Structure formats: structure tokens, C-alpha cells
């Protein structure tokens, strides 16, 4: 059974310029971030979202997490509609948001996790056990009592992953999860993602890394200007094959081939 379903989803962002805008160049209008997207992921599956900047990957994750509401279509998680039953959806979904903002800077990593876990109905003493486990799994145990305002980008990224996992969601959303991680941490993280999937969790991962996609993904959905440009199975696929599929689907120029052909000389 499909765990996450997007049915003909359209998302439009409307821009209204400032009231007194004669000094600026801001203009009104709208951006069609997603256009009639239909895609699904079943339990224990890792769906990778690929696509250039602004293609709609993060918008899909935000729609599934209930941060956003679609203008058209439906987003369903475990049979619950994100518009009519958002609380049911939120109980099932963990979202590792990209970027450093979203933590309380004057709380430690442990205190931040404790706060969010309480909001997600993880009760004591189970909460303490899970916090220790997550800190260990994300390699943050030594920095557990450090105020997060002193964290590096990579540490924020790991803490975001820990926060998403702490409620043991059946669906986990990851937005460029290894962007700031060193290679060893990234590999460790991929193993963690695979073990989550083996345990039955649905994983939806947005990334620009084709190596990451090939390493962990079961299926890839390639987005281009808010539309689904391609979809394929990628389990055990050679990264090079995935690369050529990506560039063929998006229509972008693979400048690496230009470099090897000597066009830049």
C-alpha cells in the first residue's frame, strides 16, 4: 500500500509587491512551483527527488509535512489528507529541514531535542532514552550539552536529522540531508537511512547529489520547473547511469562532459 500519495498537486506562490513600492523593483505575479504532480511512495521505500534549483523538491516535502497546503489536488499520508486531517499526518511524518535556522540557539542539543520531542507527544522516560539514542546515532553525543548557537553547519544538519527521527515517524522527509556532512558522516547517514527503510519507514529524500541518490534510493522522481519530468527505479543503479538519466530528463547540459571533451580549454 502507498504510504505517501500526491494526486495531481499544484502549488502556486503568489507575490504581491509592497504597498508603497515606487522605490523598489519588486513586482507582483505568481510562481507555479508544482504543476499537476502525481507521485507515490510505499512503505519501506526510499523515493529520491532530484531536479535543479527551484524545480519543486522542497515544496513537495513541505506539502507532505503540512507546512504548506496545495492549491489543487491532494496529499495523503497513511490514508490521511493533509488538508482535512493534518494532525493525523503530523503524527506520522518527521521532517529534517535543510538549513541552520529552526533551533533555539540558547538551548543545548539535548534541550532542543527534549523540547521538540515533548511537542511530538514522546513521553518521559521514553523521551530520555530516545534522545540518547538519536544523539549517538547522529554522532552528537559529545556535543549534547553544548548550546546549539556554537554548532557548525554539519552539526546543525545532524541535529535536524535527530529531531526528525525522535518521534519514530512512519514517513521521514529529508531535505539535502548530507549537504554539510563530511564523507564519513554522509556514508554513516546513508546506512542509517537504509536501516530505517529496512524497518518499514518510508523515506522521501530531496538531493542534488546523484551519488547519494544512487547509494540509498529505490526510486527517483526527476522534477523540472514544477513538473514530473522522469521517474525510474534506481536500486543498484550505477551512478553514471543515473547521471545520464538526470541530464537527459532535465535537459540540462552536463558540463563535466564538456570538461572531459576539452571544450573549456
Amino acid at each position, binding site marked *: 500500500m502507498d504510504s505517501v500519495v500526491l494526486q495531481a498537486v499544484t502549488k502556486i506562490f503568489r507575490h504581491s509587491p509592497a504597498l508603497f513600492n515606487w522605490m523598489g523593483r519588486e513586482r507582483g505575479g505568481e510562481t507555479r512551483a508544482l504543476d499537476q504532480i502525481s507521485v507515490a511512495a510505499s512503505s519501506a521505500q526510499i523515493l529520491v527527488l532530484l531536479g535543479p534549483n527551484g524545480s519543486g523538491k522542497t515544496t513537495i516535502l513541505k506539502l507532505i509535512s503540512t507546512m*504548506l497546503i496545495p492549491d489543487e489536488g491532494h496529499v495523503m499520508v497513511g490514508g490521511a489528507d493533509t488538508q482535512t486531517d493534518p494532525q493525523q499526518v*503530523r503524527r506520522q511524518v518527521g521532517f529534517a529541514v535543510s*538549513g541552520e535556522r*529552526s*533551533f533555539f540557539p540558547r538551548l543545548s542539543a539535548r534541550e532542543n531535542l527534549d523540547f521538540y520531542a515533548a*511537542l511530538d507527544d514522546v513521553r518521559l522516560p521514553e523521551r530520555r532514552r530516545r534522545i540518547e539514542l538519536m544523539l549517538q546515532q547522529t554522532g552528537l553525543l559529545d556535543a549534547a550539552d553544548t548550546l546549539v548557537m556554537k554548532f557548525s553547519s554539519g552539526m546543525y544538519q545532524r541535529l535536524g536529522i535527530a529531531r526528525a527521527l525522535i518521534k519514530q515517524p512512519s514517513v521521514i522527509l529529508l531535505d539535502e540531508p548530507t549537504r554539510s556532512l563530511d564523507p564519513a558522516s554522509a556514508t554513516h547517514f546513508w546506512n542509517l537511512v537504509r536501516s530505517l527503510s529496512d524497518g518499514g519507514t518510508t523515506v522521501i529524500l530531496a538531493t542534488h547529489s546523484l551519488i547519494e541518490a544512487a547509494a540509498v534510493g529505490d526510486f527517483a522522481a526527476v522534477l523540472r520547473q514544477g513538473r514530473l519530468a522522469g521517474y525510474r527505479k534506481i536500486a543498484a543503479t550505477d551512478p553514471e547511469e543515473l547521471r545520464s538519466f538526470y541530464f537527459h530528463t532535465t535537459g540540462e547540459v552536463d558540463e563535466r562532459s564538456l570538461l572531459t571533451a576539452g571544450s573549456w580549454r
Partner: protein
Amino acid sequence: MASLLDKMLAILRRDLLTAIRYRSGFVISVAGAAAELAAFYYLARAIGPSFRPEGMDYFPFVLLGMGFYTFLIMGINAFLMIVQEAQQTGTLEVMVTTSTPAAMLIFLSALSAFGRNTIQLIFFIGAGLLLSPAPLLNPNITGCALICFLSLLVAFALGILAAALQLAIQKGAALVWLLGSGVWFLTGTLFPVAALPRPLRLISGLIPITYSLDGIRMALLQGASLALLQREIFVLSMFSVILLPLSLLIFSRILRRARLLGTLSFY
């Protein structure tokens, strides 16, 4: 219920730890309150004992007025600040995807802020009364508690509206400051409403804080019975019955609109 208490404690803990770690902010707020107290004490001395608004000594009159007014306005503003800070730190988007409904989150966070303000209010009024030449005679504690409770309900409703305003226009603080400045002089904080011209007195009668200040002064300074406090209790009850559900409805509509427009994290 246990889950709600757990969340309440988590929010209190977060706010307490953050406040402790902003040591300078705590010291500045204590110094500010002390300076305000001194200013009103010397203002009352300069005016002299012959000025007795509504038959009360001026110093306790202004002390209670300013103390309770500040308590309510800071409480209303706390709702707005909670949303504003969450927008600026990027925590709002994440918090609204947790299992706790957004309205409950803001309500619990505001309770924490009201708790802090209550401690400040007790210290402010307590210290002021120690300086006061006329101690409280026969105060009506039950009436005072009832007025406080109803005023809190109204403040919660106005706070939820302020939070909705912040979500909607991202510059709610400016509008609340503007309204707060008007309310300050219309509600009889520093002088009795009777001193205002008739049109302004009519506007004053539409502001719930006017009844809060009247009620608290009558209960504490004049020992007015519940029968004498009937008008204040009735008006504040009406305001809370109308404003609380209305504010929750407006907040949920504006939150939904922000999720539709993708403006949750805008500030």
C-alpha cells in the same frame, strides 16, 4: 491531560533556560521596573495628597493602574512576540509540523510569558505598597481574583488576535504599539477616565482594559463587594465570551492562509 502538562513543562523549561542565559536582559528589566516605580512615587509626591482620584490616594491608584496595565499589555504582546521570534528563528515552520496544534502551542507559550509577568507584577505592586503611606485596608481578594481571571481571558483573546495579526502582516508589533499607546491614556491608567471629554469617554467604555483597571482598583483599594463590582464583572465576562472563540477562529483562518501562501516563515 498528562500530555498537555508535559508540553507546558517543556515550554516553561525552554523559556526559563533562555531567560537565565540572557542574564543582561533580566537585569535590565528589573532596573526598568525599579526606575518606573521611583518615577511614579515622586510624581505622586509632587502632585501632593490633595489629588485623590475617585477617592483614592494617587500613588496606589497609579501603581495599580500602571502595574496591571503593563501586565495585561505585555501579556497580549507576548503572543505576538512568540510568533515573531518563531518566524525569525525559523522555528515556527517546524513547530507547526509537530503533533501539537499551533493554537495550543501559542497558548501554552503565552501562559509561560504570563507566569513571568505575574512575578514581575507581584514584585512591582508589592514593592510599591511598601513605599505607600496608606496601606491596603480591607481589600476584596475574591473580587480581585475574579477581575484578574476575567481580564486574563480577555488578554488571551486579544493576544491570539495579535498573533494572528503578526502571521498575516509580519509587522504586527507596530500596530499593537500604536493601539497600546492609545489604550494607555484612554483606559485611566494614570488619571481617571472621568477627566476625559465625553467622546473619548465613550471610546474608553469600549476597551475591556478600562473595566479591568476600574475593577482591580475598586477591589483592592476600596474593598468593593462583588455586588459593587457587578458592572465590571459582567462587561469583562461578555468580552471574553465573544472574543475568545472569535480570536481562535480568526487565528486558525489566518494560519491556514499562511500555509496556503507559503508565508509561515516570512518576517
